[in-house]
């Protein structure tokens, strides 16, 4: 543990205004007022960098890529200036037993205080044999590391909800972090990959207020996942006007109309892509002309086709045709029964006479 964060930053030539600007942007992204940005800067400047242990499980490293592969220095990049990253397989120089030792040392030194970041799902099939590190199963490592963690951040859809590995038929028995750890605060930052700045935001909040940000019922920070892509989308006005691109290369697509009909899952996806954007604010999927896949929602890959509009059902017409034939069959059967019944009634008609009236 080193001195106040601002000193570390100053050593790297980051001025207070730069940091203020950073915090202002961060606060705006977290839907906090500018005043909060200032408070955040004050608190964070004085805070000490927390120890962070980053465990990769059944994953593709996309989440790590998402954070590290941005052109430095960026807002997202600053995350590494804010923390003391004591274990991250992909990034650390150490390997093998040295790496494991570094982790154990950090866990011991910062017991009860370190942040645990997890990316990737945890396979439970075959006693977790599908994914092991240093001969130990992921579930084992997670349980051990979770024990001394102050809080856990589940990075990406895999850690948050099970992700691609859990896709039907889930051959490895993959589960999410929250399926295994239940006694620690967990922040889910879903997305495939997740938006890096969300991680920064969570850390900033943790450093500023000493607590995790407000979460929704799926454990996601409300500041970033409070509204759907659709609600924040700059193409939303076209949806309201009923202007839709019908194909990826028609006039509507060129005019930047709504991609709803092309299968955009924006209306059912809670994420911040529409406001935070990607690649240093350059663009995001909808802006580059492709509908949202809904990658930050649980089980998004099993939710119908990516290019099927939300209001379009699977294929009821074929069922409908079969039903029409069955209906006709039932109808004809009832018709015959009815006609037979009526004919019998007619044939057995007893002519009424006046005498009968008296009865």
């Amino acid at each position, binding site marked *: 543990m080193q001195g106040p964060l601002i000193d570390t930053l100053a050593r790297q030539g980051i001025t207070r205004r730069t940091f203020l600007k950073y915090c202002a942007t961060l606060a705006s992204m977290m839907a906090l007022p500018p005043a909060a940005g200032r408070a955040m800067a004050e608190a964070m400047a004085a805070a000490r960098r927390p120890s962070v242990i980053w465990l990769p499980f059944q994953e593709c490293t996309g989440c790590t890529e998402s954070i590290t592969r941005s052109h430095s220095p960026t807002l997202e990049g600053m995350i590494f200036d804010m923390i003391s990253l004591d274990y991250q397989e992909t990034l650390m120089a150490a390997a093998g037993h040295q790496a494991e030792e570094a982790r154990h040392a950090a866990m011991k030194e910062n017991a009860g205080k370190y942040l645990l970041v997890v990316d990737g799902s945890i396979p439970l099939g075959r006693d977790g044999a599908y994914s092991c590190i240093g001969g130990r199963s992921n579930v084992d490592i997670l349980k051990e590391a979770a024990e001394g963690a102050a809080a856990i951040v589940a990075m990406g859809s895999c850690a948050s909800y099970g992700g691609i590995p859990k896709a039907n038929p889930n051959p490895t028995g993959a589960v999410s972090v929250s399926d295994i750890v239940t006694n620690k605060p967990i922040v889910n930052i879903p997305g495939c990959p997740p938006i890096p700045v969300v991680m920064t935001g969570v850390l900033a909040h943790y450093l500023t207020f000493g607590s995790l940000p407000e979460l929704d019922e799926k454990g996601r920070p409300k500041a970033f996942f409070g509204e*759907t892509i*659709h*609600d924040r989308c700059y193409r939303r006005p076209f*949806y*309201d*006007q*009923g202007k*839709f691109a019908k194909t990826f290369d028609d006039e509507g697509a060129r005019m930047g109309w709504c991609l*709803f*009909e092309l299968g955009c899952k924006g*209306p*059912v996806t*809670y994420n911040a892509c529409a406001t935070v954007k990607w690649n240093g604010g350059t663009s995001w999927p909808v802006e580059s002309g492709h509908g949202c896949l*809904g990658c930050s*929602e*649980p*089980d*998004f890959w*099993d*939710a*119908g086709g990516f290019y*099927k*509009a*939300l*209001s*379009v*059902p*699977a*294929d*009821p*017409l074929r*069922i*409908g*045709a*079969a*039903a*029409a034939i*069955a*209906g*006709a069959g*039932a*109808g*004809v059967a*009832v*018709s015959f029964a*009815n*006609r037979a019944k*009526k004919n019998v009634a007619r044939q057995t008609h007893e002519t009424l006479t006046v005498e009968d009236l008296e009865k």
Partner: protein
Amino acid sequence: MNELQFLTWVRGPGLDIAVGIFVLGVVWRLFEIYSLGRKKDLSTPRHAAGASGLHTVFRRSLPPPGMLKRSPVSYIGGYIFHIGLAIVVFGFAPHILLVTNLTGLSWPGLPSQFVDLVAVVTMAAMVVVLVDRINKPAKRFLSTFEDWFTWAVTFLPVLTGWMAVQHLLLPYTTMLALHILSVEILLVVLPFTKLFHAFTLFGSRWYNGRANAQRGVPV
């Protein structure tokens, strides 16, 4: 089951089942009803202008003289909610999209703000009609469980659809799923309740018009 799985189910298997039951029900009921046949009228017909089955199919859409004054709520409320339903069902862009994707048919949608307004007006009219059913002695007397049930089944799709668009109460995903589910309930129930009048109405009017046209009375 999370809300996206719920939505996926109602959009997939749920809708398949509902459409299946609906189509099956409609075809079967139409056969059941219209195969009963009727006797040919042997009397010498009297011909009169404007008297035919087809005339009555259209003419019955207008209130007979004096009736608008006698039962304004039934007529005005009825018009508003039937026309409103038609506008909401056939004018809302996502609905058209559904039809387009299923059948290839397409027509221009109405602005969503307008459809929104119509949905609210439709719901208001339906509530008024419901209150009328409670207040009017003849209506209340005739009402059975089916009447309250079918009202609710018709009202819910409008309400949930509107709430989904307005982002009220529940997250959009859940509301959209509930909206589709409510439509599915409507589809399943329609062939087997009084809602089937949507189909038999034309036959009924035609039969009535035809029978009276035989006597030269335009009805």
